[in-house]
């Protein structure tokens, strides 16, 4: 507030200054709207994941449940760099990606609880959800299996001459799987519009990257195939978006694949059953306090002169969306026993 009124006093001093300021304000407004949208998307993911964690603790969600808390800026920034024609595929840490693709939080939450209202009618669970409508192709449970699949989706875009890319997300654990390099080779050979986003959250389950990955930066893992790679601050949504736009421009213009290594951090364990004893509480707290992607955007927004109340209003509306999702996920019935036998094959 203080900063804003000071600027208003200066504006009165001359006309030319007024014009410059108007332009600046205009840019400021644009940035503000953009940041607000990122804030909303990231807070939705965080609140959703926190709630999923709670429901897991209550026994309402079973099996594996890999939370995305801490990594929100990566998917939100990347999603801002593509349009709706492009496709997205990821691993099992996928709730954030689905929400960022615009999938309905209630449908996602109901899948977590194994109910018929879930995206896969309760038959996929946390790791296996899809939406053809939103061009979200999963949700894959086998580490790195989504990498050739994403490469194939990119192959399809090129085959049909579409102006689209496939965003293929993988973790720092997946980067050591052989099929990743089989994919890099083919993507580079055939110049497929595939962007490989390595979400380096520092640990493949309990193993630190330094204990699992030899050589230089993960961003350089495509160097042998001539695939450009950038290391990006994955905790800063604007940096992510900037890098994403660079990669999309490269891929869509026919120059082939691109690798983005996003340095990020997951606050929770690998899955809900991981006590995370391979790292200190201090390490986690330091990241949360100093590098949190949502706090980062919040600070920037307050600097634009936005009132904190506006953010609180957003928070409230998100809480409402999440509680509706939880309500739906608990009231939607379990799938009919007959569903056991459906969807094994397409009937033809």
């Amino acid at each position, binding site marked *: 507030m203080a900063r804003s009124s000071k600027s208003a006093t200066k504006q009165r001093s001359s006309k030319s200054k007024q014009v410059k300021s108007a332009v600046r304000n205009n840019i400021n407004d644009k940035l503000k709207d953009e940041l607000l949208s990122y804030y909303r998307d990231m807070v939705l993911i965080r609140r959703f994941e926190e709630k999923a964690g709670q429901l897991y603790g209550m026994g309402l969600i079973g099996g594996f449940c890999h939370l995305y808390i801490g990594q929100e800026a990566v998917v939100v920034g990347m999603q801002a760099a593509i349009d709706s024609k492009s496709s997205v595929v990821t691993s099992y840490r996928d709730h954030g990606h689905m929400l960022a693709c615009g999938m309905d939080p209630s449908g996602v939450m109901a899948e977590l609880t194994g109910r018929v209202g879930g995206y896969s009618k309760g038959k996929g669970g946390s790791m*296996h959800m899809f939406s053809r409508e939103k061009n979200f192709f999963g949700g894959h449970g086998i580490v790195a299996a989504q990498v050739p699949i994403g490469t194939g989706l990119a192959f399809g875009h090129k085959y049909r001459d579409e102006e689209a890319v496939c965003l293929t997300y993988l973790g720092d654990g997946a980067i050591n799987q052989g*099929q990743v390099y089989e994919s890099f080779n083919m993507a580079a050979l055939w110049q497929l519009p595939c962007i490989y986003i390595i979400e380096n959250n520092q640990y493949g389950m309990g193993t630190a990257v330094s204990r699992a990955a030899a050589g230089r930066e993960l961003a350089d893992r495509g160097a042998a195939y001539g695939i450009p790679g950038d290391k990006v601050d994955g905790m800063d949504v604007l940096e992510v978006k900037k890098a994403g736009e660079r990669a999309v421009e490269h891929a869509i213009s026919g120059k082939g694949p691109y690798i983005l290594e996003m340095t990020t951090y997951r606050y929770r364990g690998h899955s809900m059953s991981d006590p995370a004893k391979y790292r200190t509480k201090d390490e986690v707290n330091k990241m949360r306090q100093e590098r949190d992607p949502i706090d980062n955007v919040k600070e920037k927004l307050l600097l634009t002169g936005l009132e904190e109340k506006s953010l609180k209003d957003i928070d409230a509306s998100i809480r409402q969306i999440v509680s509706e999702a939880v309500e739906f996920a608990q009231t939607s019935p379990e799938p009919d026993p007959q569903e056991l036998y459906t969807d094994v094959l397409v009937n033809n």
Partner: protein
Amino acid sequence: MPVEILMPALSPTMTEGKLFKWLKEEGESIEPGDAVAEIETDKATMEVEAVDSGILQKILVAEDTEGVPVNTPIAVLLLDGEDNGTSSENQGDKAPLVVDRQTSDLSISQSDESSPPQGQGRVDVYTQTVREALRDAMAEEMRADNSVFVMGEEVAEYEGAYKVTQGLLKEFGDKRVIDTPITEHGFAGLGVGAAFGNLKPVIEFMTFNFAMQAMDQIINSAAKTLYMSGGQMGCPIVFRGPNGAASRVAAQHSQNLTSWFAHCPGLKVIAPWSAADAKGLLKAAIRDPNPVVFLENEVLYGQSFEVPGDPEIIVPIGKANIVSSGTDVTIVAFSIMVGKALEAASQLADDGIDAEVIDLRTIRPLDEETIIKSVAKTNRIVVVEEGWPTCGIGSEMAALMMEKSFDCLDAPLIRVCGEDVPMPYAANLEMLALPQVADIVKAAKTVCYQG
């Protein structure tokens, strides 16, 4: 002394070939290295060259002769300095020809002749090898649907390691006929992604031995995603290539993996025997919205059958075929074992046993009805498979009989399977490891209590 030139074996699986063309005439002189004839093997047409110099005295097998067994004398060569009066009946040394190089272009023109004429009236039936039938199936489906493409190792410029994709690159170009690096896990997964994106990939594995590298993508990604997505994510893909025992290539390249795939829900598994079924079922597989594992057989590629010419004829998936009807015993087989079962049936007929031979054609979903009906008539069943016995297709059939045909059986089912060992290299051991006609005959007699 004149030398007999023998029909050479030009591939591991070749037992006979077609003498396609003589490149030298009788009376013509030959130098070592001269190409003397073109021989069509089960994989390609090869030029063969002479080892000795002399004069081609007599041609014993005319060109265009099919089914010439390996080691048959095909010509007589009069060595330099020998009396021209020596006749071919005289005893002579035997000299097989030496392989020179492949001339696959010749074999394309040859196979084109056996294809139905394009764009004119439909030919009812014509004779074709399994190899050609498979190629025509792909070509016809590619003509009909732009979203069908073929991908694999050596499928484009080399025209297929077993020449199954011959001519496809020329007709459809490199956008739709794609040579991959040697990277099975990768291109199987890429195919799955392309299928999720509504294309219809035909993924060739050079052999299914190499598909084991890609098992995760076939089972975990292709077969299961429809279910895991609640029906949203179909995967219209065909994985095809030769499966089963080849010849003298030992344990890693000679094995039958049918039951691996047949075990998994979400897949359809096809293993045809005849060229007509190979064509009709591959077309059905490409049109099917589900992932299909299409198991061919290297030894069958060169065998000829009658094939209907109408490109609209497809063979439905999931239907077995009674290839020979009978009343005394049901012999169930698939893929190459159908031929052996038919031979066995013919020998059994000599002993007064009237065998019914069923070609399963599709392994998953299994046509239980046809088998059950047959056993209700014959009350006896022998199941023949090339693969290992444990958890095999024969075991599945035994369970089916217990569950659904128990009261019809007059004798316990007998499985005739490959031996429960890795495939040996030595010729005699290899023969012992694989089911032979005599094994089938013996099993059939046993269930008929005539052993």
